[in-house]
């Protein structure tokens, strides 16, 4: 009898801890939605800011577009580099270069993103001025280790037997990688990319020095690009007026909505892993 009570108590404790772990996301979402929803309107999403001070109107379309510009640049640089590095790390375990690359990727992941921003500032921004391109480069450096690590794990999770099936037919190393390993792990690679893009989008630190700020719509990647994390920061701290605070909250809600939709997207794809496993599951 006593043992049963203990077991029940332990079960309740586990449930409690589980709920506790899920709690922050609900608090954050509820808080951001509650505070930000009043700021959202059609103009807020589609127009650039008009007027100054108390009389400001219009929206944050410039920051949404700026974020898109920066992320396009970051994706074009960060995703191919990350996927290639991840493919290398999953395939070439025996080479001497392997440990060097593995460690440097690990180290890159450990570098605080504000330092990444500073380095890009010193090497690039002093020549180009703050612009969407420089912001994209800094976010690409933040994304790359995330993408390469998730790619490595995704490719390594393709069972060796499936790759051997390709080798046994006479496929060469790159053919097995391109025809079999990457397609078989395709969805998991994509999940990692989507999560990395979502994470990078919310990064404020590397953007501070590199992407710049303007109240106007960026026209090309060489223009300064206001981004959502940046205007949240600026509006909330440097414009001490309620009208700007409200804009910061609205921008937070939009950024959160975009980020969470990326997470949602990646979750929907995650089931694929089980299908690959299932195919080999006979008699195990």
């Amino acid at each position, binding site marked *: 009898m006593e043992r049963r009570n203990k077991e029940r108590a332990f079960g309740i404790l586990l449930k409690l801890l589980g709920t506790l772990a899920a709690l922050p996301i609900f608090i954050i979402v509820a808080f951001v939605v509650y505070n930000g929803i009043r700021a959202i309107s059609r103009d807020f999403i589609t127009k650039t800011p008009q007027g100054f001070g108390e009389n400001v109107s219009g929206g944050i379309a410039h920051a949404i577009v700026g974020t898109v510009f920066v992320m396009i640049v970051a994706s074009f640089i960060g995703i191919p580099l990350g996927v290639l590095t991840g493919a290398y790390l999953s395939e070439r375990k*025996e080479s001497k270069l392997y440990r060097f690359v593995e460690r440097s990727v690990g180290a890159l992941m450990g570098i605080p993103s504000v330092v990444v921003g500073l380095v890009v500032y010193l090497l690039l921004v002093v020549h180009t001025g703050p612009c969407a391109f420089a912001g994209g480069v800094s976010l690409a450096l933040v994304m790359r280790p995330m993408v390469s690590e998730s790619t490595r794990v995704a490719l390594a999770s393709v069972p060796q037997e499936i790759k051997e*099936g390709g*080798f*046994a*037919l006479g*496929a060469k190393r790159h053919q097995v990688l391109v025809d079999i390993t990457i*397609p078989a792990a395709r969805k998991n690679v994509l999940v990692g990319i989507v999560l990395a893009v979502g994470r990078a989008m919310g990064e404020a630190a590397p953007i501070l020095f590199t992407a710049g700020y303007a109240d106007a719509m960026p026209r090309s990647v060489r223009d300064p690009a206001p981004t959502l994390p940046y205007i949240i920061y600026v509006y909330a701290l440097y414009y001490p007026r309620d009208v700007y605070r409200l804009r910061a909250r609205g921008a937070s809600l939009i950024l959160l909505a975009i980020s969470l939709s990326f997470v949602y997207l990646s979750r929907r794809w995650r089931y694929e892993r089980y299908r690959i496993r299932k*195919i080999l599951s006979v008699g*195990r």
Partner: protein
Amino acid sequence: MNVIEFVRYSAWVGNKRILHEIDLPIKKNAINAIIGPSGSGKTTLIRSINRLMELVPGYRYEGDILLEGTSIFELDVYDLRRRVGMVFQHPNPFPHMSIYENVAYGIRLHRLARSKREEFERVKKALEMAALWEEVKDRLDEKPGRLSGGQKQRLVIARALAVEPEVLLMDEPTASLDPKATTRIESLMKELSKEVTIVLVTHNMAQAARVSDYTAFIYMGRLIEHGPTREIFERPKRPETEAFLRGKI
């Protein structure tokens, strides 16, 4: 006639010696079984024939393996693996390709078909040889995920046959299958051995006795005895073979 001949072949992985100076002929258009307890080197032996061992870090060898009189180590590995197909212990169809594409993959890899029509004919022929055509002809575009274990194994047999190999290596091909599927694969092997030389690794002695024409017994990396299956099972010459057949090793 011997399709394959091991000549004083030894293999190491790192410092560990797996095989000791194996001299073994593999007979043409027959089922050549390799039996022995776990860890005796059967898998290393069979994976040496298509040089799949070269994927294992630290592998090295001495001696030679001849395919139709030519050293396999002098052949282009890509051609070698077209001539020597392989079926694995667990059915391993490519999960992202359709049933058709699985079989067509080797044909495309080796550019064996000049037209879509010819490719289809080859795929069909391979599936027929593997006794799978009737079951999958209406679902060639489906992924192999929903096939049964036995069907998946026949699919990868078809995939291997599609490039018209001279030799088919089978590494415990029924180890993960139920008895009914096992019986099907065994009768398929018998059928196939009329056209293709089969090297069958198995730890199931009853299977070796049922299907094979020749049997080689490997123990602790050494070839103990080989010959026609009936002789090995009925009149083993070496005490180790007899001990193994009686379940004492």
